[in-house]
């Protein structure tokens, strides 16, 4: 145990930006689970999520000196994960026209799933049925808290498309959740 294990994200991010690998390792240990969970929601694949998180962390290490608000390092890391995930989804679609989903990766082991409330399970199932581009847009908005402009820039689509996709996502999810409540 080092004093860094309990240090604030901001301090660790500042040190990592200056080249402190130990501080970076503490950040990685602290946030890897969140980033992986986020990446799985985006890619719907455990293997892709692992690759995406690893690529994102290497990029993050290079670009840490550009991080303006070190206290928000987790959100910043999630943004890079999101970018890598969208690249991955795009290339996956090009190489593999049939969108293969690995359901085992998305639905965790039965023990973990049992912990999820039935409401969260219903939401997880509903999210998985969204088309890729809609799901990604919605995840960026609701989990990363990205603005419409940021999402548009990242996905290289007009802001009006972002707006439309978010409305579609919400219409679909609210409807699915209604069905869940009625059954």
């Amino acid at each position, binding site marked *: 145990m080092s004093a860094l294990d309990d240090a604030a994200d901001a301090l660790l991010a500042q040190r990592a930006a200056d080249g402190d690998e130990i501080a970076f390792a503490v950040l990685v240990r602290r946030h890897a689970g969140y980033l992986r969970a986020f990446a799985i929601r985006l890619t719907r694949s455990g293997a892709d999520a692992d690759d995406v998180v690893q690529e994102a962390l290497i990029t993050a290490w290079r670009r840490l000196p550009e991080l303006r608000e070190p206290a928000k390092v987790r959100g910043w890391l999630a943004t890079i994960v999101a970018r890598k995930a969208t690249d991955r989804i795009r290339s996956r679609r090009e190489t593999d026209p049939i969108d293969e989903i690995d359901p085992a990766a998305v639905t965790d082991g039965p023990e973990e799933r049992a912990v999820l409330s039935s409401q969260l399970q219903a939401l997880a199932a509903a999210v998985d049925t969204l088309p890729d581009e809609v799901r990604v847009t919605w995840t960026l908005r609701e989990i990363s808290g990205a603005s419409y402009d940021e999402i548009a820039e990242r996905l290289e689509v007009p802001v009006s498309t972002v707006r439309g996709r978010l409305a579609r996502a919400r*219409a679909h999810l609210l409807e699915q959740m209604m069905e869940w409540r009625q059954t």
Partner: protein
Amino acid sequence: MTSANDTTSPGGVGGSGYDLEALSAYADRGRTPAIAAIDGNPECVALLDSIDRLGALTRDLVADDAAAQPAPDENWIRALLDTISREVRAGRDIPFPDTGEDARYVVTEGAIRQLLRETGDAVDGALVGRVGLRIVDETRAEVELSISVAAGRRLDPIAAAVRDRVAAALRRSTPLEPDRIDITIDDVHVAAPAATDTAAPTTAEPGSEPR
């Protein structure tokens, strides 16, 4: 949750004139600037509330997923750190004065930063954040350190101890003389237990002014 089926009705949700897309964007703007036709319409407000709950539930879902993730594999972390350590941000080379030998000695900015970080961390109650190092010329540098201080401790003696030790370390180990050393305390942290007080402030070094 409210049904989203109303979106197709000609008058918008609840006859407000705003469709789901407009309401969805309004929710994302934090319902500002306020639109009375929406805020006064019960159906619209119910839908907005549903949109907000959906967002909160999604964040719960990912938090739940994250908690269910196994701790990252140590081999995976080691491989990652191996990769990044090949891209050390060394910065400039600072040459040591010519010794007349047939050899040239340099120290990198990166190594100096690390030295200053470890020197500052060694002061009990201090944890170094940012290390700003401005090389004025090959013999002089300006140092700007941000530190976090353990809660409950007096701040200025710790800042002074960090400053003094950093100045001494720079003189002892590098070709650089500190022109100035600025210490900014930008955070307070809960101290790790069982720390012993080794931060005996030494006399102030000339040329190093605390801020």
